[in-house]
């Protein structure tokens, strides 16, 4: 996209009368992407609920120690990265480039730690004998299928988010991207966190072994 186009996107290009839609096209586009991605995750979580309800032998394999505590730490890290993202967006709107880049790096670090912890958890579970098609905890094999399917897609989103934030942070630091671009990347990041806030209770907290 050429510079002249980016100029338009920064200020509202809409001139069709009273303006209820006076947000830039990029931000609108991100919101629309979030809407469609919500539907994708909703379909997957619905699949999970459907499988859980139709299989009476659904396993509840996660003990409070260590599984739930471990995932809670992951959750805190991911939610914390949303906070640093908010700080980054605020700094961008103040025009403080160095501070923005710092906060965004912190956000990326949070995302990377989340992915690392998540991968550790995956390896542990796979080592324990949980795979997409088998389940040594007993009960439906669909537990592993939904678990890896949903958390896998979510982790992919986080990983893409880390790369995306890296590109935006670099561009913003060099003055190529605007504060609005930072805000748009923030929208994506908060969305990914929000999805986790559905995944965490539905897949982990509802599967506590007691």
């Amino acid at each position, binding site marked *: *996209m*050429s510079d*002249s*186009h*980016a*100029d*338009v*996107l920064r*200020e*509202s*290009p*809409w*001139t*069709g*009368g009273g303006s209820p*839609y006076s947000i*830039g*096209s990029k931000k*609108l*586009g991100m919101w*629309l*992407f979030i*809407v*469609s*991605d*919500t*539907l*994708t*995750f*909703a*379909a*997957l979580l*619905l*699949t999970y609920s*459907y*499988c859980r309800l*139709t*299989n009476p032998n659904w396993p509840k394999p996660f003990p409070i120690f260590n599984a739930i505590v471990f995932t809670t730490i992951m959750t805190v890290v991911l939610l914390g990265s949303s906070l640093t993202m908010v700080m980054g967006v605020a700094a961008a709107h103040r025009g403080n480039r160095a501070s923005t880049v710092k906060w965004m790096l912190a956000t990326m670090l949070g995302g990377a730690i989340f992915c690392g912890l998540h991968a550790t958890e995956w390896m542990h579970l796979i080592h324990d004998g949980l*795979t*997409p*098609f088998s389940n040594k905890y007993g009960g*439906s*094999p*669909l537990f*592993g*299928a*939904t678990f890896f*399917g949903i958390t896998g*897609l979510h982790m992919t989103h986080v990983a893409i988010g880390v790369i995306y934030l890296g590109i935006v942070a670099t561009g913003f630091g060099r003055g190529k991207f605007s504060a609005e671009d930072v805000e748009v990347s923030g929208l994506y990041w908060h969305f990914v966190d929000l999805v986790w806030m559905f995944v965490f209770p539905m897949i982990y907290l509802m599967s506590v072994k007691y």
Partner: protein
Amino acid sequence: MTTHAGAVHAHEAPQGFIRKYIFSLDHKVIGKQYISLALFSAFVGMFLSLLMRMRLAWPTMKLPFFPDGILPEQYLAMVTMHGTIMVFMVLTTAPQSGFGNYFLPIQIGAADMAFPVLNMLSFWTTLLSLVVLMAAFFVSGGAPLGGWTVYTPLSAIGQIAGPGQGLGMTLWVIAIAIFCGASLMGAINFIATTLDLRSRGMSLMRLPLTVWAWFITAVISLLAFGVLLAAGILLLLDRTAGTSFFIPGNLVLTDKVIPHKGGSPILWQHLFWFFGHPEVYIAILPGMGLASHVLSTFSRKPVFGYRAMVFAMSSIAFLGFIVWGHHMFVSGMSPYVGLAFSVLTMSIGVPSAIKTFNWLGTLWGGDIKFTTPMLFALGFVSLFVSGGLSGLFLAQTSIDQYLHDTYFVVAHFHLIMGVAAIFGIFTGVYFWFPKMFGRMMSDTMGKLHFWLTFVGVYAIFMPMHFIGLAGHPRRYADGSGAAYLASMDPVHVFMSVAAFVTIAAQFIFLFNFLWSIWKGKKADINPWQATTLEWGVPSPPPHDNFAGHEPPVHRGAYEFAVPGVADDYIMQTTPPEKVAKA
């Protein structure tokens, strides 16, 4: 008003063949690319239907490439690929991505789409999807057998379910997942463009109904394709990663127990039809918008009930998301749920009737010009009514129990979703050809094409309702297995002959189209005396559409036959002081 240089001049005109015609960012070139892709796909899909009609009418006939005649498995592969290619690559692609890309920015007074790069990406992703889909023909085992709905579990368990259910089926799922991505990119672009890039004065209620239709269709795409993407990912996991989302336990096939358990085949139907029903409206809504537009233009009258048209399209889009269960009445769902889906489905008849009566109201007392696009728009209305009324039969659970999986269903959806939408596409081609290529298409050939096609499709699909009512199941390669089906063979022969004539008529269109690009009569800027913005720019429009300025809009899209005015139409861009008094 602040001036926004970029909004009217999104990017410089590219130099060189590749940037100009291949990896173009220009919405008009991308629109043409989409239309070419759809035209190619339409002829492939039509060729498959030709082979299927041969098989149904003369089951043992030997054909080139089919020395033993068409085998039942090959017939099923043709059913699948005909459906998939036509639904995704023609009905979804041509009216929305094709014409929408070309004309939406011009009709709202913008220089391009909001995201030109995304636009280019969505075309190339669609092409990739088409290539992967077509590859299914050539891999071992051939194309998948399950129809375009690829019902599980047979689509989830691999080669054991049939020759095409191996690699061919995997390619099918991958192609559709790619297509979902392409459609989502397109939808985001269409919505952002419509909301953000309208010219000064182009308020929502001044938009041409074509723009409303593209906008609403984009919203449907945005909400529907995400779910199909999820379903596709799950099916792909079942096929490649050994999961069992859609495969129940203890499934026995050809004396082998399938090593899966716990899944639900019905889940696929829910996810698929949550996308699949809105997809019907993705195919037909652009046609509705265009029919309204063309009926008004050639009746020389404003659209009757403009606002009602907008609300009717919106409510059709909304209702389309809560009626998916009517495809699943025989899946064993609770009768109470069936009743709810039945009532909701029939309620779609209300906005549909509003649209139909408004079309008739637009024609009423008009100064009707029977040009080729007008004939196709009238044909659209006719087919929409004929195909829509049989939908009311199928919406009732008790009748659907009997009609499910018969030719009645095939006739119903071909009339409304297939042929009506295709007539919408033809309306667009004949109406906008002068703007796109600067030349007129031959009216004589156009009318010949219309009458042969119009009579032809009714001759194919009306008898099909009756063999469906008589209990003829769909997807059978021939009726030789049962005496009561054999008695319907003459009807099959009649439908096949009608299909050959209709298909032959499409070559008149193809000739007219290609011939007119180079040899047609030169077109004026506004040959139809229409009112919308695209008729105020040269034919074909220049790279940035409005030569670097935003055209101010002064009125609604359908100011025909305004009392006290000299001409019988006023362009949207004509300022009040320039309107000549009678």
